[in-house]
């Protein structure tokens, strides 16, 4: 009985994770410029990956495998904002143009 509950819970988590990963990848293709695509990649990195890994953890039960999955999940959780910030900051410093931002938000340097 417990087996069935755990298995279906893991299937639901993995299904939801896959859906979010697909949405993130779709956003990466559909959105118009770099700065907005960044947000789509965030969907994949946070909820998509974590839900999929959580589903795999339920499938593995309590063992070394779960420990490794927890480590992977933590590592992705901590590094994905850092690398997103690094890419975004590099794009801003090198002056990549921003698309469709209201005029008031831009500093004088970026308007040129």
């Amino acid at each position, binding site marked *: 009985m417990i087996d069935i509950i755990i298995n279906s819970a893991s299937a639901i988590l993995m299904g939801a994770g896959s859906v*979010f990963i697909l949405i993130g990848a779709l956003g990466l293709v*559909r959105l118009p410029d770099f700065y907005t695509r960044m947000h789509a990649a965030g969907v994949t990195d*946070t909820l998509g990956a974590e839900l999929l890994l959580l589903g795999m953890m339920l499938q593995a039960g309590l063992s070394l495998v779960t*420990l490794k999955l927890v480590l992977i999940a933590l590592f992705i959780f901590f590094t994905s904002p850092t690398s*997103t*910030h690094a890419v975004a900051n590099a794009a801003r410093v090198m002056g990549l143009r921003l698309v469709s931002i209201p005029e008031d*938000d831009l500093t004088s340097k970026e308007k040129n």
Partner: protein
Amino acid sequence: MFNIIGLGISLTCFWLSMSGHYTTFVLSLGAASVLFVVYLTRRMDFFDQDTFQFSIKCKHFGYWIWLGKEIFNANIAVAKVILSPKLKISPRMIEFKSSQKTELGLVIFANSITLTPGTVSVDIEDDKVIVHALNAELAEGVLNGEMDKKVTALEGL
């Protein structure tokens, strides 16, 4: 010296939990790699720099649960934007004056902003965080200052 022994012990525990094979040969390889890593960290003068102390308290778990909820809501919002046929985006670039006093607090705040989809901290100038948001609604999530208050509350250890 205490740091080196501590590093060696934690590396050994990490190796033992990752390996899963406990024959004499594999164990000796593990011991060799632990010693090598300790030697390398010594060579890099890692121990001369300031080490920073951290402790995990109950309020951190509270913050993580709140952050998880925020991340979930923001994910749904961004997913709706991506799936909407006409792409209802109106990107904003906003500046937010944060109230954290320590560098660590500012790092936690900026990383929390980036971790919530739809808002990415693009730059930090002194105590101003510059945030790119996918639309005005998601930008409001930073501008209302709730996250800022919660991170500042975490600081006072």
